């Protein structure tokens, strides 16, 4: 009904509007410039990569729990075929004709090299190809323009270029698994000098480590194009009446995140160019003098500094931590306000907190580098800033916690995930405070304690928020609800098993168990023997966590085709602007002009006729300003 209305309007105005409603299938669903299609593309890509990253981890957990025992059945064969060989070269490359004698001896278990490949790629994929595309690019693309009442992003074609740049980087990354020698194996941080000479390969180009850098360059390009587009859209295309302090908090989170990406990622791009030159042209940006590899002097002029890479890398990668968490907090805020049916407590303070957080996140990076011996004075500075940055983080968490107080909470599936986010993020954040101190970090550095700490933030933190967002905005994207029973099954399974995975890791880490032991610490039994029995428990939890995702996959696919249709365009009785559009919204989003009259979270306003007052609803007795043509964005053009 509504779609027809827009079509008629478009036909009537044919002289100005020469495109879009006769687009072919490819332009409509694949090479689309519509922010919603691009958002869904980002979201699906991100979810697929999150699942792939999970699978890599599940195989690694076998190796940790069972050492070098062969992998069970088909999994052993497939990992062997693709990832098992860390040592073969172009000359004796026999893929896919099957394993040869020397390799069969390893019994189709995950080799040491294979474990390193999986570890490096699990980190890379989860951070740069899973969470950022899904939590940031996906939701921001789909939801943010709707929430600010815009017809699309300011630069729709740059938006499309951004997604396809990410797509190219995904293809390069996946290809790197099947080149001889396997994918990158120097950790997701790609520290030189190891990353400088690992995998010589073909022309120094067709090998895992170099392809990793190339994939990152395309990934960074995608992020830059995307983030400048988000900022420009929020500055330029807010609907009339939507002042900055009337923005939903999710939009604020996206705005700040986009700035972080815009300013931090280019520095990693510079570092990636340098490492690329080290690998391809043999320069020594990160290669120290007198480097010995396998007993031979390395073929580098030397004079470079591995520490330079760490500085440049963490200058990106610490703001990246906030890139991972801020969109999640934004999503959770929307859902908490909607399901507690009351305004967010301390909205302005939260906005101030994320500004502070963003600024401080640029001056804390070297707390990842206490072990490098960079000096006590430098450490003291970064120790101080790191402690300070916990203040705005705590403000955010406290404001959300207080928002629950006195609400009549609806425990829908998205709300369950959003509620669980709070304690999980809390555990992750509070366990980070000891790490900020130089003296404690020297002991805990690179142990499972670190693994548990940051996974509590990104796994039951950000990924739970992603699930919450999917359940919450699914009806807007498809016009159908997701199944509540399967959703709750998914939630409880995930919550229980994810704590089974990461909880015991704190214990293991405090005993001193190192994060990169491929056999789960068998060799170091005399030092960490007391906590090794947890390995089996954690692995079991991890596999069950993998199983617990099945209800989600079934629910997601089933609901697209056969979910319960929504009865109204605003099934959650929400206030923000995205619910003023048809479900799913057509190209151009809004079918009527929009004017904003109030803040984002006016739930349960005393004296109102219902328990929510949509932002676009004129107050009683006030004229409908949206009907006044000179105030609409289209008229100003």
């Amino acid at each position: 009904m509504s779609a027809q209305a827009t079509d008629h309007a478009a036909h009537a105005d044919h002289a100005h509007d020469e495109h879009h409603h006769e687009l072919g299938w490819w332009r409509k669903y694949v090479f689309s410039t519509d922010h919603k299609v691009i958002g869904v593309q980002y979201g699906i890509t991100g979810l697929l990569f999150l699942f792939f990253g999970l699978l890599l981890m599940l195989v690694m957990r076998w190796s940790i729990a069972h050492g070098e025992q062969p992998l069970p059945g088909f999994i052993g064969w497939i990992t062997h075929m693709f990832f098992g060989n860390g040592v073969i070269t172009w000359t004796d490359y026999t893929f896919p004709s099957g394993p040869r004698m020397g390799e069969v001896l390893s019994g189709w278990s995950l080799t040491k090299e294979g474990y390193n490949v999986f570890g490096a790629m699990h980190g890379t994929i989860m951070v740069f190809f899973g969470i950022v595309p899904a939590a940031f690019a996906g939701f921001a693309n789909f939801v943010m323009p709707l929430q600010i009442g815009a017809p699309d992003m300011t630069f729709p074609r740059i938006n499309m270029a951004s997604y396809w740049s990410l797509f190219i980087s995904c293809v390069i990354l996946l290809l790197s698994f099947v080149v001889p020698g396997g994918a990158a194996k120097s950790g997701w941080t790609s520290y030189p000098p190891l990353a400088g000479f690992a995998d010589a390969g073909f022309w120094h180009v067709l090998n895992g480590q170099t392809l990793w850098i190339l994939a990152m360059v395309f990934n960074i390009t995608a992020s830059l194009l995307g983030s400048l587009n988000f900022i420009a859209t929020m500055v330029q295309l807010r609907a009339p009446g939507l002042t900055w302090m009337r923005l939903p908090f999710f939009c604020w989170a996206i705005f700040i995140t986009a700035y972080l990406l815009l300013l931090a990622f280019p520095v990693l791009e510079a570092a990636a160019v340098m490492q690329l030159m080290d690998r391809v042209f043999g320069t020594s940006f990160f290669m120290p003098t007198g480097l010995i590899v396998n007993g031979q002097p390395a073929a580098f002029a030397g004079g470079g500094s591995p520490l330079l890479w760490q500085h440049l890398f963490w200058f990106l990668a610490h703001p990246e931590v906030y890139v991972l968490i801020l969109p999640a907090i934004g999503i959770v805020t929307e859902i908490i306000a909607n399901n507690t049916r009351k305004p967010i407590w301390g909205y302005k303070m939260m906005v101030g907190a994320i500004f502070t957080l963003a600024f401080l996140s640029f001056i804390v990076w070297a707390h990842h580098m206490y072990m490098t011996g960079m000096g006590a004075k430098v450490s003291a500075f970064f120790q101080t800033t790191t402690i300070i940055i916990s203040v705005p983080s705590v403000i955010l968490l406290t404001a959300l916690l207080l928002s629950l107080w006195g609400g009549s909470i609806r425990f829908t599936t998205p709300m369950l995930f959003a509620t669980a986010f709070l304690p999980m993020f809390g555990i992750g954040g509070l366990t980070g405070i000891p790490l900020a101190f130089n003296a404690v970090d020297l002991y805990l550095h690179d142990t499972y304690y670190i693994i548990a700490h940051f996974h509590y933030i990104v796994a039951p933190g950000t990924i739970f928020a992603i699930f919450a967002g999917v359940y919450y905005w699914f009806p807007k994207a498809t016009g159908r609800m997701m199944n509540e029973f399967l959703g709750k099954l998914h939630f409880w399974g995930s919550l229980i098993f994810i704590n089974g995975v990461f909880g015991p890791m704190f214990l293991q880490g405090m005993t001193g168990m190192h994060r990169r032991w491929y056999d789960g610490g068998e060799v170091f039994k005399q030092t960490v023997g007391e906590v090794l029995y947890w390995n089996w428990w954690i692995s079991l939890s991890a596999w069950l966590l993998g199983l617990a995702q099945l209800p989600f996959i079934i629910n997601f696919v089933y609901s697209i085709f056969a979910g319960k249709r929504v009865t109204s365009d605003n099934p959650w009785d929400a206030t923000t602007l995205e619910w003023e559009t048809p479900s799913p919204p057509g190209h151009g989003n809004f079918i009527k002009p929009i004017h904003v009259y109030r803040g984002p979270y006016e739930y349960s306003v005393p004296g109102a006729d219902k328990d929510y007052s949509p932002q676009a609803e004129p107050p009683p007795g006030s004229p409908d300003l949206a009907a006044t043509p000179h105030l609409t964005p289209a008229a100003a053009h």
Partner: protein
Amino acid sequence: MEIPYTVTARPDTGLANPKLGIWLFLASEVMLFGGLFSCYIFQRIGAEPGYWPHGLLNVPIGFANTLILIASSVTVILAWASLKMRKFNQYMWFMLATIACGLIFLGVKLTFEWPPKLGHFGAILKKEALVKYEGFLGNEHLAERKLEPRVEISGHLLPPESYAHDAVKKELHGRALIEAVVHDPNVHEFKVVVDPENANPKDKANERPHFIPRDRPGDDVEKKLKAEGKSEEEIEKDLEHRNMLAVIHKEDVQWASSFEPKHNNYFATYFMITGLHGAHVLAGVIVFVYFFFTGRALYRRNPEQLANRVEVSGLFWHFVDLIWIFVFPLFYLL
């Protein structure tokens, strides 16, 4: 559906979309080049005394290129102003001038700037071997003058005798010859017609080396003697006698290659930053060529939009210019 504010400014922000977009893009570019320049600072401060070379670049040519880029920044503004005054033909001339400046800049880079370095040989000596080559390094003199020591002998690499037959000579010259000699296990020494600062290490004029564009005096002597019909052995003896030919044993050498990125961190940063800057110049030229050829159609439809496009790409062009304003003193003068 149409996106608002693509051409006209939004009243409360005072900006049209493209202008905001380009400023955000330039912010990210500042961080990119900021990362590269901080690498330059880090490497230069971290270098041991003597290992960060000075004055190897051709200052007059670099200065000429600086002027050319600044001129192109002026012409692109004039092109924009012409559009604002609705003088399309004038716009075309200024646009052409801008494109020409960009191309001249790149041309100079690819003929006078980069290639001479790739054929130039340099051998960084092991610390314990420095004394052996004191005649070419003059480190005692430099120490008296409280200057950084010399650790490198550079110049024109002569092909070894085993490479004497014509077939090999024809194939191998410049960088290829240097690579072959450096990696040939049967060659045990480098014969180098040295640069002025190695020929006259105590000359005050050579305290800051400047071999490009100056010709090596040794080259002239070699040519003259060749014309007189002297044998190669006699020529080498003569050059050695004049301290113009260095014979460097491979075991004394820590690193030898042409002046390419892998030679040392100075050339690595130099080629990386000027290379990325050159890529930006090329990108700007491509955009301007596009406006040059498609501008007329857009001008007829919406002259203001063309003016906006030229303004926005002009902002990018000024930024590229600004980067060069940093590159020139950092690499050429300091």
